[in-house]
């Protein structure tokens, strides 16, 4: 029993990385109507920027995360302002193609800038311990990740439901033209939301640097998982993204424990089942 609970906790920490990426993806889709294929690459850039600040230049860990968020936000600014903006009116296919082009560019750009070899930064000292939970040692860093994920979830909920900004965002998401008609500066709002979504992905990447390999191509693995999460949860729905991430993370962890052969396959099976029973996703529609 304790084993199951412990494994579930491990799965929860996995889920939080997925949540951070899926959250950004969902917000961007909900407001701009754009599915950013390159979102995983933004996660990867966040990891690289954080690694550079923290691992190579020795800057304070928290400051590194902040700098990485700013860096990726700037990159996403260029993406949106000079590229995506011009194809909003085009067919959905072109968005996906354009953002796919960005994946290719980012993958090689990262190789050119940092070299193709993987990078491993040191673990920040205050995180390198473990706490006994369910009779076994659970790393403090994983607890931190869970905390950060939940914090982001609460923060997003507060922003969207309780602030003026949130109301504008929700309005623009549900009816772009009307929002424009009542005076919302749609272009600026879109850029801001896109940058915010990118920052969320970068946050996930930055947080992952002490424990995961930083290498070209990590964005590609992560985007597939994020898509599965959003399909399960419902495209454009933040609550769905959160629940979907937890389902995928925890199931992956249990899969490794109980069905070690089929781990990779399980999340796709779950996705197929959700599609059969509730095609718009658990919270979609």
């Amino acid at each position: 029993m304790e084993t199951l609970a412990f494994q579930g906790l491990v799965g929860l920490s996995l889920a939080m990385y997925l949540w951070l990426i899926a959250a950004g993806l969902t917000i961007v889709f909900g407001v701009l109507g754009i599915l950013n294929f390159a979102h995983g690459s933004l996660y990867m850039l966040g990891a690289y920027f954080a690694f550079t600040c923290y691992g190579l230049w020795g800057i304070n860990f928290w400051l590194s995360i902040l700098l990485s968020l700013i860096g990726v936000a700037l990159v996403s600014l260029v993406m949106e302002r000079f590229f995506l903006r011009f194809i909003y009116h085009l067919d959905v296919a072109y968005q996906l193609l354009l953002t796919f082009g960005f994946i290719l560019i980012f993958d090689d750009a990262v190789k050119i800038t940092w070299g193709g070899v993987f990078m491993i930064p040191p673990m920040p000292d205050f995180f390198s311990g473990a706490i006994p939970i369910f009779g076994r040692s659970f790393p403090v860093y994983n607890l931190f990740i869970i905390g950060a994920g939940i914090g982001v979830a609460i923060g997003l909920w507060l922003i969207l439901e309780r602030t003026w900004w949130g109301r504008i965002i929700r309005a623009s998401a549900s009816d772009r033209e009307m929002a424009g008609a009542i005076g919302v500066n749609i272009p600026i709002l879109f850029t801001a939301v896109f940058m915010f979504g990118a920052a969320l992905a970068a946050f996930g990447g930055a947080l992952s640097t002490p424990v995961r390999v930083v290498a070209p191509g990590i964005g590609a693995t992560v985007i597939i998982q994020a898509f599965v999460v959003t399909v399960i949860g419902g495209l454009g729905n933040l609550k769905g993204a959160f629940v979907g991430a937890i389902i995928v993370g925890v199931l992956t962890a249990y899969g490794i424990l109980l069905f070690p052969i089929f781990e990779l396959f399980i999340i796709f099976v779950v996705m197929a089942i959700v599609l059969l029973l509730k095609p718009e996703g658990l919270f979609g529609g």
Partner: protein
Amino acid sequence: MMTRKGVSIFGYGYKKVSNLLLLLLIVVLFFVPQLAGKYPMYMAMHILILSVFALGFNLLLGYTGLLSFGQAGFYACGAYGCGKVLILIPSLLPGIISGVLFAGVTAVILGFLCIRHTRIYFAMLTLCFGMMIYSLAWKWHTMTGGDDGLVGIPRAPLEIPGIFSIDMSSLQNYYYFVLIVCLLAIGLLYRIVKSPFGLILQGIRDSESRVSFSGVSVKNYRLIAFTIGGLYAGLAGALLPPLENTVTPPLAHWTHSAEPVLATLLGGIHTFSGPVVGAFLFYVIKDVIVRFTEYWLICLGVIVLALVMGLPGGVVSIFEQKLIPWVRLRFAGRSLH
């Protein structure tokens, strides 16, 4: 002599000239083994296979308005199906046919799950299902050989028992087989898109509601289109095992699904020949870039950006929108109509 676009080149109509060029191209293709070396012949086979792959993809995108990012899954079904059969029955036709059928059946099943969805959702789902096939190919190693893949697939002879048997162990013979099969497949698809079925698909792409008001089941037509796309991907995949003698999981990975996407984008989404032109361009560009720099992804990415932003119609649109009008202007004086 009235021509399709009112263009006359040296007295011959536009259609006749383009047909002549097409014939010339096919003749050249038949002489590639004699005219070029072994490597270009090998590349030509890959280009033909990618053409078939991309044409199936564009049936979905250009004609039906569905962007599928998971075609590699069906390609892999074709490849694994063919490979497994060839190991048991070393005869080319059963292998290829099995691969195509396997891909088709998979397309029908997965299509049923994907078709009910709108365009972005559809793209995501196809992506995820393609990756599902990838993970299955990787994990089910008793069946697929895992990451080693299927090894030792023979380049089986093309035979109908009792009637004839053509040995395929020479790459040149196999080249002719691939060429003929691809030409037939391309011709067949051309018939399909020019038929009423093709017109309905375009109607669905342009205005789904209008088409469904006229009593046509949009879902069924989409499913049929999806299945055809899957069959063509499966054919492309089935032609691979005798060529390379191995089938491995990366064939199902979504980065492989990106190849027909890129080829179609390069060549042009809105024309029939776009994917074929694009397949050729894709291989040539990649091959050329790789000789100069290892960073070919970024070059390809920049090209993609340039195409989407500046030339959504792809390379073929340069012909349609720029070159033909120029020709028309230039030779307008010569035509008498």
